[in-house]
């Protein structure tokens, strides 16, 4: 299982879980592909089979089973550069095409407490939208009975909207297949409106995997060629490890004299056992603190032997934050259900004084079964 990808997808699942199923959805659409759609999808699915048999395709499968969301997104963006898609691109380049964008996405299944079907894709402008900035997207559906796998297949889509306008809630259902199209055809509706067709997709499974007939999905625009839309969300979910602690509180002894008020805009990141990526708390934003303040943050952490916690002052926009505390917590320093205080002092030579913070940590469980 690709654990990092599951963690990267977890915050999108949080959002996707926030929609309610709508009743009265038909199980099969009467929609029939137009000749133009049929021609494009037939060529796309044919080229895909050649691509997957090539060394590039084998490499892609490896990336999907091992890489994080950012890397897989980068690799998906390169797929259409392969020579096997030249004819497809010529078809998409025709003027008068009755579509706003075309997409290629990898269908990936991940088990994360619940089953997740995700499509990581790239959309390019076609027809009247030819030349518009492309977009990279992530579509998430929460499904029961997912097989724990990696690459489940590919999805090609022809959409009415421009590449940057594919985000939001949608609902898909299976439709009649097309002539020469070796895959499952689905009609995707915009939201709950059965009259508002967002697009048509064809999905080709890898191996024996059978597609899902109906799906409620939420699509996030992860980024675009024009540079707008940073849709990456930060994970909060952490897979279980042997031991469990809570960073119960952060105490400010003395703030950084940075000339921007007396308060520090405090957030922290942490990493367990020096593995994977950093987690953040608060996941977004910060907590304003001055000398004497205690922030009962209460963030819990699974770990085996150590946790590194780094405290920052978010005075600046983006990632340009000032470090205001560094703490290394080792299991050997903790006793079960006993509060332990860790201190940090940072001296800024240009500042007027030292920045001093402590964190209070309690170990709440050890040797937890988690397989």
């Amino acid at each position, binding site marked *: 299982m690709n654990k990092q990808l599951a963690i990267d997808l977890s915050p999108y699942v*949080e*959002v996707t879980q926030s929609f309610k199923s709508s009743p009265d959805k038909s199980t099969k659409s009467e929609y029939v592909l137009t000749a133009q759609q049929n021609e494009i999808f037939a060529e796309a699915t044919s080229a895909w089979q050649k691509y997957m048999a090539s060394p590039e395709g084998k490499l892609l499968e490896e990336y999907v089973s091992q890489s994080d969301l950012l890397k897989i997104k980068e690799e998906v963006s390169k797929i259409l550069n392969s020579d096997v898609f030249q004819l497809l691109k010529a078809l998409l380049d025709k003027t008068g095409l009755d579509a706003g964008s075309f997409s290629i996405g990898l269908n990936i299944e991940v088990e994360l407490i619940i089953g997740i079907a995700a499509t990581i894709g790239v959309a390019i402008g076609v027809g009247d939208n030819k030349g518009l900035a492309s977009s990279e997207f992530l579509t998430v559906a929460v499904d029961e009975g997912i097989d724990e796998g990696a690459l489940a297949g590919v999805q090609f889509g022809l959409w009415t909207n421009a590449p940057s306008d594919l985000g939001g809630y949608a609902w898909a259902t299976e439709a009649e297949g097309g002539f020469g199209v070796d895959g499952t055809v689905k009609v995707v509706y915009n939201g709950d409106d059965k009259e508002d067709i967002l697009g048509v997709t064809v999905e080709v499974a890898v191996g024996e995997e059978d597609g899902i007939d109906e799906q409620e999905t939420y699509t996030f625009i992860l980024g675009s060629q024009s540079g707008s839309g940073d849709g990456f969300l930060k994970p909060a979910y952490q897979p*279980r490890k042997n031991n*469990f602690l809570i960073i119960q509180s952060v105490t400010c002894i003395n703030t950084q004299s940075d000339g921007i008020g007396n308060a520090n805009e405090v957030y922290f990141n942490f990493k367990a056992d020096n593995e994977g990526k950093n987690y953040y708390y*608060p*996941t*977004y934003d910060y907590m304003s603190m001055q000398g004497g303040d205690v922030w009962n943050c*209460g963030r*819990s952490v699974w770990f085996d032997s150590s946790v590194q916690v780094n405290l920052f002052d978010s005075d600046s926009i983006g990632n340009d934050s000032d470090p205001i505390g560094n703490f290394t917590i080792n299991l050997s320093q903790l006793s079960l259900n006993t509060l332990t205080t860790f201190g940090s002092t940072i001296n800024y030579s240009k500042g007027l004084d030292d920045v001093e913070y402590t964190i209070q940590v309690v170990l709440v469980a050890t040797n937890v079964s988690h397989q």
Partner: protein
Amino acid sequence: MSKHSIKITTITCNSTSESGHDEVYLICQSDAGLPIRFPDTINTNNPMSGGGTPWQVNLTLNFEYEVLVTLWDEDLSYDPNLATYLQSNDFRAGSGSGTIRLTNRNGADYSISYTYID
């Protein structure tokens, strides 16, 4: 694996973090697992103002070791990147009922009432 349950009964706003309303929603995370949002529908929140009607939350949370309840102010659309952190409280196993007051330096002042179920 849940051994304990707590019900968040009401949340009262004593003061907001900004002028006008705070558009409040909760993110609840049990045992560092997959967080849930409340209200559980995209783009929904509970507008609250100081001294206004308490929010009848009545949300039961199950956990093994702890559940972290974070209050957020939803400023723009569903995107959590743009939300404002108000405050949080970590609940561990316990009994009875109580109220916890949470404040921040931006003026947010909220009271969370809860009842342990088991």
